[in-house]
């Protein structure tokens, strides 16, 4: 790990100013992703701004009947929150399907959204990777890409967003709230938060340098059965190959987002009209533009079957 200086400010404005005003500074929250990457020198910040002194750790009702989740709320606490369990079950389920009990106790709402890809070449500093070192090439295109994206990728990168929570937030139409060093606040719809790689895969999201996430808001609850189904190589403590976050009625109407398939949670709201026709009708439409590799083409069938299982679960 490269050495770094450290500070722990007590207000969001100070934190944003500290990152904006110091070269190569980064926020650190739970540290479960950043420290992992720093040990491998994939991330090499010279200054860490610890956001754990900022508060921002409560879940509050909003005037619109939704919820405002502080950026520092731990994954365990969010999953266990009574309102989340009752009204946003898909979010509880997605969080509980991720990582381990120890990690969820540390992992924060903002840090989870910003976790980086698990592409094996991104993690191996001896390999070319445009996301880690822009312009160096992409080892995954002709390499081991079984876990990687089937849609929305580019010639520069086919990494996925590996997380579960964001997929549930996508189906819930969450909004990410931020503040920058100038005190300017911004509300970013979750659909526009993560970026597709294009020719700049080093940028995972549309956050600006030094922009601090303060909260994630959820609109008022959507009725229906809240379902998160995650398919992985082992029953627990593994990333999704494919996941489905859905809110479905008994008649099959509803909303669905897919995880493990792209650099962002994948949702095609227009295709949701086809849900009552069954899973295949929907996935044929959602993945019409998919460009899978020979190794990961299985994900298309898996997405269809996982959605099928979700539809059955909602009908039961």
């Amino acid at each position, binding site marked *: 790990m490269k050495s770094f200086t*450290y500070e722990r400010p007590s207000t969001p404005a100070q934190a944003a100013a500290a990152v904006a005003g110091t*070269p190569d500074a980064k926020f650190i929250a739970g540290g479960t992703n950043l420290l992992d990457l720093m040990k491998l020198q994939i991330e090499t910040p*010279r200054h860490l701004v610890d956001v754990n002194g900022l508060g921002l750790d409560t879940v509050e009702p909003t005037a619109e009947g939704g919820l405002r989740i502080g950026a520092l709320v731990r994954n*365990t606490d969010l999953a*266990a929150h009574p309102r989340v*369990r009752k009204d946003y079950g898909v979010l509880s389920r997605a969080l*509980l399907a991720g990582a381990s009990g*120890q*990690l969820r106790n540390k992992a924060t709402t903002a840090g989870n959204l910003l976790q980086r890809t698990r592409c094996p070449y991104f993690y191996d500093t001896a390999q070319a990777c445009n996301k880690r070192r822009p312009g160096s090439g992409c080892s995954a295109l002709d390499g081991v890409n079984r876990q990687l994206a089937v849609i929305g990728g580019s010639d520069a990168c086919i990494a996925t967003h590996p997380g579960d929570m964001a997929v549930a937030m996508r189906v819930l139409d969450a909004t990410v709230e931020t503040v920058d060093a100038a005190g300017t606040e911004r509300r970013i719809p979750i659909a526009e938060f993560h970026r597709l790689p294009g020719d700049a895969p080093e940028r995972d999201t549309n956050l600006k340098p030094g922009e601090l996430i303060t909260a994630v808001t959820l609109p008022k609850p959507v009725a229906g059965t809240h379902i998160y189904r995650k398919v992985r190589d082992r029953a*627990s403590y593994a990333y999704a190959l494919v996941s489905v976050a859905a809110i479905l009625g008994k008649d099959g109407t509803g909303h669905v987002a897919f995880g493990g398939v792209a650099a962002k949670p994948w949702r095609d709201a227009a295709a949701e009209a086809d849900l009552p026709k069954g899973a295949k009708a929907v996935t044929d439409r959602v993945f019409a533009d998919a460009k899978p590799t020979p190794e990961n083409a299985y994900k298309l069938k898996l997405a269809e079957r996982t959605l099928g299982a979700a539809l059955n679960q909602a009908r039961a």
Partner: protein
Amino acid sequence: MVGATAAAPQDRGAGTSQTTARTDVPVLATVTFTVNGERRTLDLDTRTSLLDAAREHLHLTGSKKGCDHGQCGACTMIVDGRRINACLTLAIMHQGAEITTIEGLGQPDQLHPMQAAFVKHDGYQCGYCTPGQICSGVAVLEEIKAGIPSHVTVDLDAAPRVTEAEIRERMSGNICRCGAYSNIVEAMTEVAGGQA
């Protein structure tokens, strides 16, 4: 508040595509926390993980380093009542924290009930993962008592119960290369029964 006491030189490098040279001057910071009931103050390189602080600086070598990347659970400690991976957190981020390691749960002449149950049920072979398993096991039973749901909890609105499926899912963050899993489940089940 913890403050770093030395500034690393800001050599910005030439910005070439080659790896830019970077002198790495260690930065020291002071942190005070309570470990197993004892107040400790340490001057540490900011890079020191909580695990390394315990093992290398406090000589509490019960907590083990399996992977150093959050993938095995051998380093599990209980910090402010919550189990965490001590390898993926910086010691200096724990100013004022209450930390419990395996040494603080119990000692050979005064075993914690979970330690005693692991002995009774053979919840280990080589023992390397065991301190982490036991710290995790103690915290898992507390989590179930506190009503925190898990991936296998069927009804999110009901209080979770101590079942084999719940224990297995909740303990999935602790890998045992010797495969002592079924005996660990038995040990935890016995302790949970005793608590009920």
